């Protein structure tokens, strides 16, 4: 039978039942590889359910540092009888199927072209542990122990992780060690080890960290000076406020009184959450909310108010599969249009597209500056993959000399010297007016904030000319915004090739890998990663410099492509959509295959079509 041989280049998938504590064992597995200096990307594939349904954890290990999803599973650890048929099927030819053989594997699950490694995990857990919950938990640690022998994971590293995890619950260290050793010795006694796919210590992660995007967003909000967080629970955004609370309770308590320098309000719904943010920022605090697609729909009315009344807002949209309730626990990038143009009337909102946890941190902190500077909503477009999965990321950085940019806010002295304050006067000819915070001056600077049409002095008006002046100034402000938002990033020395590639957010990992795969096949592309909407002039220049441009995104309707065409007035056929919307993070193979199909050069079929068809 075929044997896959690979060092530090494999995909391992765990098939578990949700609610059985497998997550912490699986995290330990990924972290151990990370600590062995090997780049690793774990992904949770979980149901919208609390207990009892199938859940998977997929770990891509890549010495070359490819961090996107890759199709094909080299080793499957299956401890879930419900999903066993599917799990057996998904293993690559020549791959390995590690399973719990406490009960004999049914003949129909035997494939001739893969290797089976049976470990009696349940029986061992029953024998060595008496508490029912412990039996369930340590079954998971037993398979990690077995994998340490099979894949050559350093036992000391695993034990170090356990020691770190149970610093405050020392009693649990010994039984965890025992479970690891049980698994390890079972492999030692029954199988040839290590396998031909295995790991070797490297020094390829440097000072990077392994962190999820939601935690990084939360830290960005703390460093960016957010004091009011208003939110309503919705997967996959929920853990942002959880992390904000965790860090704020340590970092933002008044050292003397212990009182909080922040307020977290769990609102009655997304509408109220957005209302609270608007109230707080109107009052001069930095405030934010977090949600996912359905929440953006509910917040739309208020987003329109914030746009029209020019109130700063920071919203983190951790996107999930839509439309409607959609696929709540699967990833997509389906809210580009609904976020960019949220609300009725002529509206448009600033979007930021982070692609790493470090950018989640940087962009969230920056979003507060942008929102205050531009006096408008700024929406950070994360997604489930970036937000909820751990990613290898450059460490988070903060420059202690930097100051918050609170934008054009008049203080009492400035108001005192002013003849007449006009809330919506374009004093600086950049479309951004000056604002005042309630309570600043006894007789000057008060005005009425409203969602109705108004003149430069915030007075209600139905005068058509005044209305046009106002909405045209908002367009001028939109132009100004282009100077402030993060510029796109380029992956070439110049525009050297006929075809370009555009990607953003979590399509980045797979797109960069696909570029290398394509290069090996003679297809060379220039590439640009978008980091914000509005699109700056360099975006237009990049597109205009290429005959055709592939636009990679994770939604059915190629929403980014539509936005580019509409906003930059492009010829639609110039932009070729490359799409994936099955709820799994896009893989390099998918991008590679779609580009090959749509690339005009004559390339022989045989040369290119080697990668397996993506499982969906």
């Amino acid at each position: 039978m075929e044997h896959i041989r690979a060092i530090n280049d494999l995909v391992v998938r765990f098939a578990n039942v949700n609610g059985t504590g497998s997550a912490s064992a699986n995290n330990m597995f990924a972290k151990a590889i990370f600590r062995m200096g090997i780049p690793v990307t774990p992904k949770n594939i979980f149901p919208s359910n609390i207990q009892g349904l199938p859940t998977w954890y997929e770990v891509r290990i890549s010495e070359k540092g490819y961090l996107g999803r890759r199709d094909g599973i080299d080793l499957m650890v299956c401890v879930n009888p419900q999903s066993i048929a599917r799990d057996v099927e998904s293993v690559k030819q020549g791959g390995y199927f590690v399973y719990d053989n406490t009960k004999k594997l049914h003949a129909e699950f035997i494939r001739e072209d893969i290797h089976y490694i049976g470990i009696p995990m349940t029986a061992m857990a029953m024998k060595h542990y008496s508490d029912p919950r412990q039996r369930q938990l340590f079954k998971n640690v037993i398979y990690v122990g077995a994998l340490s022998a099979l894949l050559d994971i350093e036992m000391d590293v695993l034990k170090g992780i356990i020691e770190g995890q149970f610093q405050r619950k020392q009693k649990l260290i010994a039984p965890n060690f025992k479970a690891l050793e049980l698994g390890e010795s079972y492999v030692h006694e029954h199988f040839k080890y290590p396998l031909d796919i295995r790991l070797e210590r490297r020094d390829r992660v440097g000072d990077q960290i392994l962190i999820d995007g939601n935690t990084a967003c939360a830290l960005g909000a703390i460093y960016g000076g957010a004091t009011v967080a208003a939110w309503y629970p919705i997967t996959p955004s929920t853990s942002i406020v959880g992390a904000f609370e965790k860090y704020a309770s340590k970092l933002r308590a008044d050292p003397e009184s212990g009182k909080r320098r922040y307020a977290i309000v769990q609102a009655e719904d997304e509408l109220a959450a957005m209302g609270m943010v608007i109230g707080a920022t109107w009052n001069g605090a930095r405030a934010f909310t977090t949600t996912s697609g359905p929440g953006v729909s509910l917040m739309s009315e208020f987003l329109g108010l914030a746009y029209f009344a020019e109130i700063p807002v920071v919203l983190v949209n951790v996107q999930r599969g839509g439309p409607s309730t959609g696929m709540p626990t699967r990833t997509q990038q389906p809210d580009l249009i609904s976020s960019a143009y949220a609300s009725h009337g002529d509206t448009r909102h600033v979007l930021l597209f982070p692609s790493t946890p470090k950018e989640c941190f940087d962009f969230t902190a920056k979003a507060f500056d942008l929102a205050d500077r531009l006096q408008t909503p700024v929406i950070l477009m994360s997604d489930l993959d970036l937000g909820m999965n751990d990613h290898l990321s450059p460490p988070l950085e903060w420059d202690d000399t930097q100051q918050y940019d609170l934008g054009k806010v008049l203080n009492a002295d400035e108001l005192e010297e002013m003849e007449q304050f006009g809330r919506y006067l374009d004093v600086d000819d950049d479309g951004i007016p000056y604002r005042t915070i309630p309570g600043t001056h006894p007789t000057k600077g008060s005005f009425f904030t409203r969602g109705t049409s108004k003149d430069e002095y915030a007075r209600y008006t139905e005068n058509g000319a005044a209305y046009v002046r106002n909405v045209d100034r908002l367009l001028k402000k939109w132009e100004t915004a282009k100077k402030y938002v993060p510029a796109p990033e380029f992956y070439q020395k110049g525009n050297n090739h006929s075809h370009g590639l555009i990607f953003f957010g979590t399509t980045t990992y797979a797109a960069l890998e696909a570029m290398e795969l394509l290069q090996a096949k003679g297809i060379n592309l220039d590439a640009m990663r978008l980091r914000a909407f509005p699109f700056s002039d360099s975006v237009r220049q990049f597109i205009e410099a290429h005959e055709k441009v592939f636009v990679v995104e994770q939604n059915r309707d190629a929403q980014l492509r539509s936005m580019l065409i509409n906003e930059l007035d492009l010829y639609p056929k110039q932009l070729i959509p490359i799409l994936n919307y099955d709820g799994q993070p896009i893989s390099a193979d998918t991008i590679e295959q779609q580009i090959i199909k749509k690339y005009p050069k004559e390339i022989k079929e045989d040369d290119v079509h080697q990668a397996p068809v993506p499982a969906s």
Partner: protein
Amino acid sequence: MTYIKPLFRHPELPKNKIGYAKSDYEGAISTLCAGCGHDSISAAIVHACYELSIEPHRLAKLSGIGCSSKTPTYFLSNSHGFNAVHGRMPSIATGANMANRGLIYLGVSGDGDSASIGMGQFVHAIRRNVNMVYIVMNNGCYGLTKGQNSATADIGSLSKGGAENHYPAIDLVGLALELGATFVGRSFSGDKTQLVPLIKAAMSHPGFALLDVVSPCVTFNNKPESTKSYDYVRAHLEATATIDFVPEKEEITVNYPEGKSAHVKLHDGSVIHLQKLAPNWNPTDRHSAVNRLQEAKMKNEVLTGLLYIDPDSQEMHELENTVEQPLNTLREAELCPGSEALEKINASFR
């Protein structure tokens, strides 16, 4: 009809303790219908703020959408105002209050804005005990869209177009009492003697203070058969007590007759004096308020006055344990943990 308000003020107008004349608390000229109850409530707000010597810029006025929500333009022009979207003022007020606990928040809403589209936010602002005054200008109809019945209209009420309401009225006061509101009062726009001290007491109360003010709509709902008309309310008015409000440090000059009276002392030292108490009613006993309200309903009375006050009210900031200093005044030094702390955080993710 007057369109322009003269700016001239008599130089010797009386001033309050902080040197402001009553005119300093006024706003733009009202564009509501002549005789609208809402204008009387605006006048009562001006009067109360003047007498309480509130610095106008230390008060924020917020509203939703509807005739009632237009009124903040007609009082306190030196205060910042926020005319939010329909039914969503409570969330704006909650966020604003979280950001700056140092201002006085005055929310103005209507029966459509609070009892229908904004019911969810109204209920949750009460639940959180947001420190604000919440006045509902309650006329039982949608004035700005020409007289449809609202959710506070009584069964049998006729809309301007003649449609009969078949559904029971939502009683905001009863609802608030059930929800655990810490200050609940009801009044009538035509009864300034009662309304002014009620507003003053509400402003001094630390927590959510609801004032449901029946305010007849002269254009669409002042018909003889309407239970929200001037004539009907006047004929059915009953009060829990007469009310007088004495602010902190002000000497009590009135002599109150002995008998059925009560005094409620507020956190800031001010006192609410209540006279001619209704039988079996105690202002700090929620149970007695609920009972009294039910009895009044059975007798078709419009029960007004202070219905309930919790003298131990803990407002949202106390429940959230936030710092005394308003959050909107904190800057980098207090908010940003700095690079050293971040390095430790990085290390925890390796």
